[in-house]
């Protein structure tokens, strides 16, 4: 069990290309402490194509679905071993993924109805209009559980230096929690496709007992860098910024930095949540 002092900051910015062409931001983020040492984080990226005109609503529904379903399991199983066993099992994660996608579909159908939007007989066509990815992370005092449908990145950064390691360059390590096979080009897995729960990838691990941070981001961030190496360097650099300047200072600048990143990089909407555990 880690001795937590967990800080969470996040920002979601409209992409520079969307500002140019007058489109809304189709990303959404949500992060909430359930208890002092338990937090649920989620980011989602709406597809933004002409075939997905309501994907802004779809990404909102996605982060809400993750929070609601995760909360429901915490309420029924607690946040200890019972939940850990469930989310660490194949059957448990399949059930969890099904419930997430079911909750999302119910939300978007309701949104469609209450907004008086044009009736669509084909279920899949309606869901496509709200298409979105979803990345979620549950952090408890003992374990973390990552969940992903579609592109984006869930990264852990930690201090790997020790007293014997005198090399100042070997200070921090950044690695993906879920190694998602890259889909080349612009396509992504999505909540809106048939059997989308089967594309969910998950990972459950024990919290490290050293200072560390989790970073959830939509693909607008990683696509703003030439390669994976530069992106992971960026993750380490954000972590260093928090250590050196504190979460409040980084939070105060986060919007500006992400806007700059979109402007000079991918042009896409960018969402980023950082959960930092200084582990004193």
């Amino acid at each position, binding site marked *: 069990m880690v001795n937590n002092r967990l800080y969470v900051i996040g920002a979601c910015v409209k992409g520079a*290309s969307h500002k140019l062409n007058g489109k809304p931001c189709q990303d959404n983020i949500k992060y909430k402490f359930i208890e002092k040492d338990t937090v649920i984080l989620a980011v989602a990226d709406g597809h933004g194509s002409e075939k997905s005109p309501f994907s802004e609503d779809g990404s909102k529904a996605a982060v809400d679905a993750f929070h609601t379903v995760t909360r429901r399991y915490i309420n029924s199983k607690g946040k200890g071993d019972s939940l850990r066993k469930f989310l660490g099992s194949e059957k448990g994660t399949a059930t969890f993924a099904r419930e997430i996608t079911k909750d999302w579909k119910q939300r978007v159908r309701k949104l469609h109805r209450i907004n008086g939007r044009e009736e669509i007989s084909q279920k899949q066509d309606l869901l496509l209009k709200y298409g979105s990815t979803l990345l979620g992370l549950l952090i408890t005092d003992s374990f973390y559980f990552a969940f992903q449908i579609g592109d984006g990145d869930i990264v852990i950064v930690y201090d790997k230096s020790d007293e014997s390691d005198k090399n100042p360059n070997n200070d921090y390590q950044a690695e993906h929690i879920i190694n998602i096979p890259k889909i080349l080009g*612009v396509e992504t897995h999505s909540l809106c496709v048939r059997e989308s729960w089967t594309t969910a990838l998950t990972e459950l691990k024990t919290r490290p007992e050293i200072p560390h941070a989790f970073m959830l981001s939509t693909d607008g961030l990683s*696509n*703003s860098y030439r390669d994976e190496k530069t*992106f992971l360097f960026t993750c380490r650099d954000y972590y260093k910024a928090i250590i050196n300047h504190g979460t409040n200072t980084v939070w105060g600048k986060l919007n500006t930095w992400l806007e700059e990143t979109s402007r000079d990089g991918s042009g896409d909407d960018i969402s980023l949540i950082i959960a930092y555990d200084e582990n004193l």
Partner: protein
Amino acid sequence: MAEFKRPGGELSSRPLHFIWMVDCSGSMRGEKIGKVNHAIQSTIPEMADAAKSNPYAELLIRTLAFSSGAEWVTSKPVNVEDFSWSDLTAEGVTDMGKAFDLICDQLTIPPMSDRALPPVLVLISDGQPTDDYKSSLNRLLSLPWGKKSVRIAISVGQDADDSVLSEFTGNKELVLQANNAADLVKMIKWASTAAAMVSAPSSPPVSADGSERERTGGINSGNAAPLVLDINNIPSVTEEENNVW
């Protein structure tokens, strides 16, 4: 508190490779190659303008010529702002397979980045391949970026082998017919707009089984690239009885 700069490494837009693959065999001699040269040359300013309105994709253009053998006319991808056209001449046979081989070498990762946008390949041909194109084409279509590439073919004249071009595109509707000079120019201009369509920011979903969700219609050979093109505005062919190739 002293200002400190944005954390992280160097920012980069996503590369978008656009490749003209031009049949320079002897049958293209004269008016055909002349029109190809003129039409591609004329698309450059519009492609540059379109690229300016989407600065988040780095449009890189190359030309590959094939006749007896195949070679890169542009040795490396060139930013559209710096791209200029050198007129091609026509002589020899139609080694389309060798052209596919050269494309394969450039679509592997590396030199392609896995963060690139889908490359656009525009194949302009008036005839039938004279080499073993099939194994080279199969290799191209088996590459991850080969599968994801947006492939358009312009069939020049009535002797072109449309079945081969359909194999290349994976979709009959992306084999554009150009049986006269006016249509050749129109089709080349339309093909040049593919870069702008590919770079428009959106993320279409894939099916859970990994197959493309969308097809444009027409024959789907199973190798069709995920379509981000609007085929509804492909120009119609001119109905001319005379002056057809």
